[in-house]
């Protein structure tokens, strides 16, 4: 390089990093928005744009981390394909199934769980004061008899009325207790559990025969692992026979299709990204495995929250960090648990409101995690991310859309500024959705048909025009309800289950 070229290069470099110079440029051109009005409007517009860009860049970063992990794991597929032999050293598991008013489906769910392929496990069904005939169905279908109730009451729960043992299946027990909510039911199941690991499963979850083997795998690698989360996928459109998934398909309902896309974009690879840096703050209540002694030490599930699954995980992070103990909470990306997604707006709305409330409760009750010096990635990255982008996200996102629309129509914002805002918001959203589909193709290839790919691609675009915004609105409602301390309710899930066949 000759001297003059070097000189010019240095001059340009100096230009780029010359802060006073750019400050002067800013002062020069701050009016270029053609905004007639206060600096506040301009500042808010910049903030909204920066927020959208930052949010999507964070998700992209998580997807990138997931990509690295998936690429690495893909190479080990040859080992996973080999016949698996039980050594008898596998850690036994207790599957805890909380049940409330599940008389129609509980028997088939339990029968399918009894067929899971694992060396040693037991199932503890907790009937949480159902108002219907759940307990009668269980007694009848599984020939239950009363069982002596000598178990350690490590976590206080609502009164247990009776413990039953199945005479047909030695590894099936049922706890009949007074109603106390899902968290209370899980705590009762933990008290009764015999084994060092327990797996919290929703009664309506559809598992695969090797689900337990896959979700327990990380525990093999040492006592550091205290919890693993299973991937929950949308079962709508799939074929289920004998309680197990036999064919993966796409739902026909547009609402369910949006949720498939959403699961790929945010729930699957987002969580996987956090897991790579041991910052996973959510293990789905539909399917997660925990070390029993650690959960008991943490006090079990909270009963006065609606998001007991996330709250427990955040509390585990906080506890382990406070006690300076080495630990890992791992996300298992293989599709191992399928659940029915709501196909009507009302149920979906209730679900999203509930999730936002659960998030609020989890973050607020464990806020100390963020300020710990040894908070690690969980406290210094994941927690602030959740706070800013998930908790306050609906407020900012929806506020941004409303503000920009109003400002545009009021003439405070030029049409191109408005257009750029929409362009960035939708463009980044589409990029994020497609990156989720790329990872799905790379890792699992669950949707092999060309038509399925096209439909997913289309809905990935459409998701950003309407669905995400409605979601933000519901989440905002959830946030407001939490703030107003309005009483939370699970609501009723309208189950269609048309893809399920009778055993």
């Amino acid at each position, binding site marked *: 390089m000759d001297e003059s070229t070097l000189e010019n290069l240095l001059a340009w470099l100096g230009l780029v990093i010359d802060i006073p110079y750019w400050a002067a440029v800013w002062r020069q051109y*701050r009016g270029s928005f053609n905004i007639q009005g206060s600096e506040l409007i301009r500042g808010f517009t910049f903030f909204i744009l920066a927020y959208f860009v930052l949010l999507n860049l964070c998700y992209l970063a998580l997807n990138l981390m997931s990509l690295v992990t998936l690429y690495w794991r893909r*190479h080990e597929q040859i080992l996973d394909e*080999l016949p698996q*032999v039980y050594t008898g050293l596998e850690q036994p598991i207790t599957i805890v199934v909380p049940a409330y008013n599940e008389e129609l489906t509980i028997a088939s769910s339990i029968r399918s769980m009894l067929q899971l392929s694992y060396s040693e496990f037991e199932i503890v069904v907790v009937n949480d004061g159902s108002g219907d005939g759940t307990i009668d169905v269980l007694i009848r279908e599984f020939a239950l008899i009363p069982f*002596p109730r000598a178990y*350690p009451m490590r976590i206080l729960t609502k009164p247990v009325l009776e413990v039953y043992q199945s005479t047909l299946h030695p590894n099936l027990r049922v706890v009949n207790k007074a109603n106390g909510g899902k968290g209370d039911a899980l705590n009762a199941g933990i008290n009764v559990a015999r084994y060092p690991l327990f797996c919290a499963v929703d009664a309506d979850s559809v598992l695969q025969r090797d689900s337990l083997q896959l979700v327990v795998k990380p525990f093999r690698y040492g006592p550091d692992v205290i919890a693993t989360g299973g991937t929950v996928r949308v079962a709508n459109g799939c074929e289920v026979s004998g309680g197990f998934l036999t064919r993966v398909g796409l739902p026909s309902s547009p609402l369910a299709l949006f949720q498939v896309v959403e699961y790929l974009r945010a729930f699957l690879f987002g969580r996987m990204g956090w897991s790579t840096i041991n910052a996973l703050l959510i293990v789905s209540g539909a399917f997660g495995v925990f070390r029993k002694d650690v959960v008991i030490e943490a006090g079990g599930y909270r009963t006065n929250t609606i998001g007991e699954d996330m709250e427990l995980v955040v509390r585990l992070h906080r506890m382990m960090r406070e006690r300076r103990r080495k630990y890992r909470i791992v996300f298992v990306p293989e599709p191992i648990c399928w659940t029915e997604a709501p196909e009507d707006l009302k149920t979906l709305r209730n679900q999203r409101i509930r999730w936002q409330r659960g998030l609020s409760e989890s973050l607020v009750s464990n806020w100390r995690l963020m300020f710990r010096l040894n908070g690690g990635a969980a406290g210094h990255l994941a927690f602030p991310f959740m706070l800013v982008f998930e908790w306050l996200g609906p407020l900012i996102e929806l506020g941004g859309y409303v503000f920009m629309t109003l400002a545009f129509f009021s003439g405070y914002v030029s049409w191109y500024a408005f257009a750029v805002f929409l362009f960035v918001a939708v463009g980044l959203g589409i990029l994020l959705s497609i990156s989720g589909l790329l990872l799905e193709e790379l890792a699992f290839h669950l949707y092999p048909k060309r038509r399925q790919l096209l439909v997913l691609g289309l809905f990935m675009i459409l998701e950003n025009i309407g669905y995400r915004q409605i979601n933000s609105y519901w989440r905002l409602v959830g946030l407001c309800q939490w703030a107003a301390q309005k009483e939370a309710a699970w609501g009723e899930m309208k189950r269609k289950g048309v893809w399920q066949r009778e055993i």
Partner: protein
Amino acid sequence: MPTVARATLPSTAVTRTRRYDLCARRRSDQSQHARGWSGAGRAALARTPLDDSVTPLAILDKRISTTSAGSILESITLSDPFLWIAFWTGTAALCLAVVLAIAIIAMRAALARQRNTADLVDWIWMPLLARIIAGDPIEPLPSLRPGESFLFLRVWIHLQASIRGDAALALNEMAVRLGCDRVARQYLLSRNRSRQLVGVLVLGYLRSADAWPVLLHLFHGADSATSLLALWAMVRTDPGTALKHAMRHILAREDWPLMRLVTILAEAPELCSEAVTRAVPLVDPAHLPRALSLAEALQIALPPRLLAEMLRNESIDVRLSALRVVATPDLLPVVRSLADHPDWRVRLQVSKAIGRIGDESDLTRLQKMLGDPEWWVRYRAAQVITHSLLLNLEEVRELYYATDDRFGKAMLETAIAEGTAR
């Protein structure tokens, strides 16, 4: 598209002094901004004589932002740097989305091609493999094309993992005739992890001594899956040498799951027993619990003298691991001495150990444990009483009725019910 003049490198360097001069000039024109951002004002500013060199400031100067005047093209410019950045971010995002979409389509096409090749390999080779397994010699054997090697070896490995005996040997012979050992050695040196793993698996099943140096190198690597697989291949090839070399590492590598190690070491149980027994006294104290756990998993009978030392070790974890391995009555006195240990986990393991090696004189001790403050100790003691051969069912019931302690009574009732349920 917005009109943005491209920057050209100045013929002379723009000094900091010059830039500040420009800034000062801009500040003096603030009054123009106070009137609002009129097109005339901007145009006037743009015409302000500046330095002849083209500076970034001059580039920005050329952008005109107006809503009331100017052409449509002029009206869709992005004069604000943040808008400019935002616009190009959105554009980049959409372009990247298109690229990813193309990548997905390309992956689908590649997968389809791979599936076709795999189907072809299955169609050609599965019948031949089935005949080889059945003991049917095949002459001549077709040659394996380079593009088919990887897929063929995957099928071959899967079959090898499922069969034993003469069928496995026949598959090995077939692989050697096809030159798979040579291919596998090439895979060992590959950077592709999948191929490396396949190479190690093939050479392990072939028990190829030629690959020993490379396997040893992989064994010492940081990657858990590859190093563990290399150990497996080495144990299959030459178990004595492998265990002699590897035992120290086996006990130290916490990232190797115990279950997987047990599967590997079970290939050579006697040699493994000797190697573990030799290694345990010499192992680092921090790894002693792991060594004892391995011994327990492999059901290795460690010398009583050695176990007695472990039972007297200061570390609770070592004592717990040693208690789990205790299997001879020689150690009863030491085990009994731990029955009142302050740590409930030790008392629990003592009750289990008594269940394995105890005699009738331990019944009193177990009855006392029925009243232990820790639930799990009471539970295990009750299980030992009801399920061991110390008492028959009638005697257990008598004991139940004779027990005053209600916790002990409840525990016995539970243990009896569990036994009945099974």
